[in-house]
């Protein structure tokens, strides 16, 4: 009896994927994604370079001029210290948004009363025209570090909360019933079933919030004490030095892209099953 069972299990244990790989005829290795991305960026930069050179340098710039301006800024130490100045409120504001946004989204999605009471603020808060409200924050929080953290927090907490909330809403009822069938309490169901099941949505929220946090950072540096990368942008713009103005802009975009990859990396670490389940080509 036990012997036949082992045999049967062995048969089933051969994963469908392994079989397919062996059966498939050899085919040309597909071009790696990073090669395609690099090529795409190079083509974009080349087009920008050639088209941008004909534009009056007050109204536009082009990659080689921006690179030269960037080199000057970096060598003078201005760029590095501005980046450091910007990153501090960015990291703190974003982290607070993560720590508040995820639990907020979880409970709003899970408990009907909280959804009715708080959901409207989350939805409304997401659309809040924060730029208009920054001047109102200043009398309360001053012009320094605190107000920048607050602006970054307010811009990034809502996309995190909304995505988490939506994710909770689409957790299959059957998974929650697994918890109920095994007599799990509400808080255990929330932590051990809903939270992991919602992770892909949370991660999407973290990515969206990243972009908004970068924008918020620059807004804060424009409208409070002028400082950091936003400060470089506004000072360069005021002296019509368009190439220099582009340096922090490009740097911020590169930074946001890198952070986005970092979130993707973390996602693969904390939710490895997700990437394995989701569609591959």
């Amino acid at each position: 009896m036990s012997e036949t069972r082992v045999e049967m299990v062995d048969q089933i244990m051969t994963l469908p994927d392994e079989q397919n790989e062996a059966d498939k005829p050899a085919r040309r290795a597909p071009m790696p994604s990073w090669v395609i991305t690099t090529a795409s960026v190079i083509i974009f930069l080349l087009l920008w370079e050639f088209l941008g050179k004909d534009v009056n340098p007050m109204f536009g710039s082009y990659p080689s001029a921006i690179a030269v301006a960037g080199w000057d800024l970096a060598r003078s130490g201005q760029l590095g210290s501005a980046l450091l100045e910007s990153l501090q409120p960015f990291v703190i504001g974003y982290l607070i948004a993560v720590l508040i946004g995820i639990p907020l989204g979880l409970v709003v999605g899970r408990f009907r009363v909280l959804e009715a009471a708080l959901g409207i603020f989350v939805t409304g808060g997401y659309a809040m025209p924060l730029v208009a409200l920054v001047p109102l924050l200043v009398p309360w929080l001053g012009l320094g570090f605190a107000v920048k953290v607050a602006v970054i927090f307010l811009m990034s907490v809502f996309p995190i909360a909304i995505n988490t909330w939506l994710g909770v809403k689409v957790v299959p009822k059957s998974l929650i019933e697994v918890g109920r069938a095994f007599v799990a309490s509400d808080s255990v169901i929330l932590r051990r079933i809903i939270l992991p099941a919602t992770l892909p949505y949370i991660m999407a929220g973290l990515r969206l919030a990243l972009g908004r946090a970068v924008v918020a950072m620059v807004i804060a540096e424009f409208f409070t004490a002028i400082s950091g990368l936003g400060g470089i942008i506004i000072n360069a713009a005021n002296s019509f030095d368009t190439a220099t103005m582009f340096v922090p802009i490009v740097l911020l975009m590169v930074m946001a892209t890198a952070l986005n990859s970092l979130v993707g990396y973390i996602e693969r670490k904390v939710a490895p099953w997700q990437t394995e389940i989701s569609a591959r080509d």
Partner: protein
Amino acid sequence: MGAVSLVDVSKQFDLHVGAEVHRIQALKRINLSVSDGEIMVLIGPSGCGKTTALRIAMGLERASRGKVIVGGREVEGCDFDRGLVFQHAELLPWLTALQNVMFGLEMKGMRGAELRDTALRYLDLVGLKDSANRRPHQLSGGMKQRVGIARALAIDPKVLMMDEPFGALDAQTRESLQGELLDVQQRTGKTILFVTHDLDEAVLLADRVVVMRKGEIQEIITCDLPRPRGDLAAIRGSAEFAAMRYRIWKALHGAQATTH
């Protein structure tokens, strides 16, 4: 009094179709009692209320009226005296096979080395000790359902509730799991309430078959094929099997014929 009883259980719910509200009578005053160590199979066409009856017995749904009695006392909600095997296994995808079995045990309060050892023992019982560290997506459908069975058995319930557990599997896997279930039941002596729409499955597994129709019990048929049913292939070929199958088929068919 049996291990689980449904006493005078009715269930109705409102179905909203556009602006209209349809009142659905899913169960009409059902009375059934599963005896200790018995395998009772609920069978019937889709929408006959068999799954609803099981979910009420499990405690996942509340009866509109009537009561559920487990081990002599009226119960409300789920408890460790009943273990559920889901239709599609419903393993938690972020946990390994072993961790999925451990989940129920942890909920029951088990900790430490005992937790791991117990979970492994039940994985071994369903022949999956070697796959303990695989995640659900690395398991075949049949293997997933074995983990589901191990998870439900591990909490040592009085009654195992099974909601069409083999319905989504291919015929061969289904047959081997039916054999293993009988084997496990023989060894553990568990009481089982089993929902299916598969006639052969009902005959092979059941001590009694409850034929349901439109929320009511049409007939309860005692299936007296000898136990233990070790050689399922021989049973399938036997005249008793054919006769019993025909008897239940008639009960089911009669149920349908009267609707015309």
